């Protein structure tokens, strides 16, 4: 069962985990990404490519379900203006055993960061700047290729 959502509203990670647990799988793993509250960031804006973004996340979820024995995958990514400390992204996976669930989560977030069309802009008191893609993210994604 694949759940993929791109939304402006906040999500409840606990509720999403409870849904993943409902399937009866023995192992549920997840990752939540939040807007950092350091570096003087007041807010962050997330832009996306409507249509292509959802398709890219669905393709990643499909990929994970093919690659690992999973019973469920959830990917939720927020867009719009988010304040410091706000939740940005949730990925979760359910499987019979822990290795698949944990690895699938690593795959989903690492590949989302290089493959999914979102763009972050940080807002500071002095002004705004577009976040630049990092070489470390490419390295992390490469380990799953």
């Amino acid at each position: 069962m694949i759940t993929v959502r791109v939304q402006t509203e906040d999500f409840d990670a606990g509720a999403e985990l409870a849904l993943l647990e409902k399937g009866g799988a023995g192992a549920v793993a997840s990752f939540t990404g939040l807007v950092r509250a350091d570096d003087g960031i007041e807010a962050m804006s997330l832009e996306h490519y409507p249509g292509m973004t959802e398709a890219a996340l669905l393709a990643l979820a499909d990929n994970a379900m093919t690659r690992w024995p999973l019973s469920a995958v959830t990917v939720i990514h927020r867009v719009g203006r988010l304040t410091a400390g706000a939740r940005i992204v949730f990925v979760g996976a359910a499987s019979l055993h822990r290795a698949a669930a944990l690895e699938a989560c690593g795959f989903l977030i690492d590949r989302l960061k290089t493959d999914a069309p979102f763009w972050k802009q940080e807002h500071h008191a002095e002004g705004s700047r577009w976040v630049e893609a990092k070489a470390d993210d490419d390295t992390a994604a490469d380990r799953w290729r």
Partner: protein
Amino acid sequence: MLDILYFAWVRECVGKASEQIDRPAGVSTALDLANWLAARGDGYAEAFVDPSRLRCAVDQQIAPFSQDISGAREVAFFPPVTGG
């Protein structure tokens, strides 16, 4: 007709999120289109001066700049993605 979409700082440089154009003669690849747009000057020149700083999608699929766009309906230009 071809839809062109711009995102993030590319959108800010160009000054619009999208536009529709008639297929220009002599434009076969995404790189041809980027160069054709750059020739408009101003914000377009600034956005497309160095295509290696950009990525593109053709009909909502990530594509290399060498991709043939003669049959495409939508081409998007944007910086490397930074989600997650």
